[in-house]
């Protein structure tokens, strides 16, 4: 995967457990600053090794960690230069999800070795979105759940995300959303 994934992971660990924790993970996963270059593609095996080491260090199961990582990913990109991409891709949850494939197509032009997933809004009605996710990679379902939760948060919505079906490399998510109740 692109080194950007590793950078976001590192920031998550440093934010949540401190720099020493990241140092432990570097030793365990046998990685270092040379594997933190955003636009360099690294072997997926290295990325999964880091995932495992981070989950262990944060004392989380792998699915729990992946869900947290997905949420953090949105938070990270929303606070960097990537924010303008998110803003451009959609000003509300539904339009953003509808436009993800177009956004990824452009990302491919800048990062031609990226293996980007596909998202399609199958249905959208009454605060419910049926979303189909397809990827060449396996095992990222909890990460997508985390991403969708992160997007709900980004648009100041509350709701739920659940896997409702799928076959082959396609997984269907049902996202329910509503305006977050104002706390006074």
């Amino acid at each position, binding site marked *: 995967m692109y080194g*950007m994934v590793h*950078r976001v992971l590192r920031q998550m660990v440093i934010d949540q457990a401190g720099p020493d924790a990241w140092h432990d993970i570097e030793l365990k996963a046998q990685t*270092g*600053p*040379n594997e*933190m*270059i*955003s*636009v360099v593609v690294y072997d997926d095996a290295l990325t999964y090794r880091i995932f495992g080491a981070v989950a262990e260090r944060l004392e989380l199961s792998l699915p729990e960690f992946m869900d947290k990582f997905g949420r953090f990913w949105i938070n990270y990109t929303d606070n*960097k*230069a*990537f924010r*303008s*991409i998110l*803003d*451009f*891709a*959609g*000003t509300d949850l539904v*339009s953003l999800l509808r*436009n993800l494939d*177009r*956004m990824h*197509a*452009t*990302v491919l*032009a*800048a*990062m031609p070795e990226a293996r980007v997933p596909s998202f399609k809004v199958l249905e959208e009605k009454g605060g419910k979105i049926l979303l189909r996710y397809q990827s060449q990679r396996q095992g990222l379902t909890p990460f997508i759940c985390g991403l969708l939760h992160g997007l709900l948060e980004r648009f100041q919505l509350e709701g739920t995300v659940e896997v409702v079906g799928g076959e082959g490399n396609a997984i269907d998510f049902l996202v329910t959303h509503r305006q977050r109740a104002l706390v006074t």
Partner: protein
Amino acid sequence: MTVSLSSQQIAILYPAHIAINRQNEITSIGPSLTKRAPWLRPGEKLFNHFRPTVGGPEDCNFAELAENTGTLGLAARNHSFQLLGAVLSKHDGYLLALHHLTFGDDIDLDVTDFAPGDPQLSNHLLIRVQAALIEESRDVAAELTAERQRVVDVIDRVGRMSGFLAHDLNNFLSVIALNAKRLQRSELPDERQRHRLDVIVQTAERCSEFTQGMMTLANQKSDSRLPFNLDAAMEEAAALFRSACGTKIALRMALNAKGAIVNAALNGLANSIVNLLINSRQAMPAGGTITVSTQTVRSADLDIPRATNGCDFVEISISDEGTGMPPDVLDRAFELFFSTKASGTGVGLASVRDFAEQMDGWVTINSQANVGTTVKIFLPMEEAPAIAPAPTTFELTSLSMRRVLVVDDEDYALEALAEFLEDEDYEVTTALSADDARRLMKENQFDVLVTDVIMHGVDGIDLARWAGEQQPGIPVILMSGFVPDADQLSSDWLFIRKPIDPDLLCQMIQSTKRTAG
């Protein structure tokens, strides 16, 4: 051909469209304009809000534009956006099939303002992606620079610590060697005891060679330019070079620059050679032979511009039988931070090049895949050393230099050296510090001052300077495992490396003459 489109399809294909009747009154607008231009309302005259970007309203003959598929450009009168597109006829007027005309990312638009196939959409996204990647790259560059500096600092600290450890170890070895040599001089009747003593002396000497190498590598203090005999220095560092090669590699040394003197930083040269040996070792995972050779080269025989200053050169060559480098890698071999090794820093060869250039020399590299690599360092040759090197033979000019003041803050070393010199019939006075030595010199006259260089408090160099003022012309012999900085030394002083060769020290003392003070 007639095409029928629903309002929804038109909204997707032309999010910024405007429909007008034949009186140029707006009848409907696309979703992008609904969002971006809420001041546009059906029933209003189009040209109240827009002006054509070419010509005036009278030039906007929509029927003709629709007939000829001409291009229509509109600029908002009181707002900073423009629209561009074509005119299509419909039964009650015209559909202005427009899209936003943008320049870079200067307009606050989002993806819904563009039709799916609009090339501007990709441009906008690409600009944003590239801006984000540039920001990321800046962060990465800053992080890598900080990390490299951290690594350099750690290496520097480890190097200095190694140097200090090696220095202290060298002092202890000096004590062992001196005492063992004193015992060697006594008449031991037992052959086995004599053999054991020989083993102690030889082992101490071999160990000392190693610590010398470590100090040469680690001690930054002595890394100044100093004239030295190249082949002698290479022989001295041979143990270090062997350790850098590891166990699978045979090191062959062919030193053919006999007597050649170079004015260079000894540590820098040793560092460079060790770097090259490590590279060679890594290129020969199955083992093999590395050849380190020296020779002198006449300037006239070199066909490069840098060799035109007329002086001759020494060539230090490190040649391996390793995997070699393909041409594209060879072209970048000296580039800082370029490395093909997974854990490589890309600093090694770049530092060798920098060292050679700082020493007014240069470095070349030749490599062939699956044959091997040869790196040659060229350094200018000196005519003669600037300060007196430790002599290997001495003319015995005087036997009258008998009163010797020996200064060393290591008491066992001081004791062993004093006893050795006393055995040689010198009148020896000892001092454990420079302050003690100063006190003694104020009260007594000495023929020779023999002092350690690195001591707690005042060091041997300051003491020697003070002694020269107190007793002008007194001969000085400095002892140290480190090679002192040349600019700190007086040309009258002699220098002997620790561990001390006692016979050489005696010869040096006998060779000294008090100069006119």
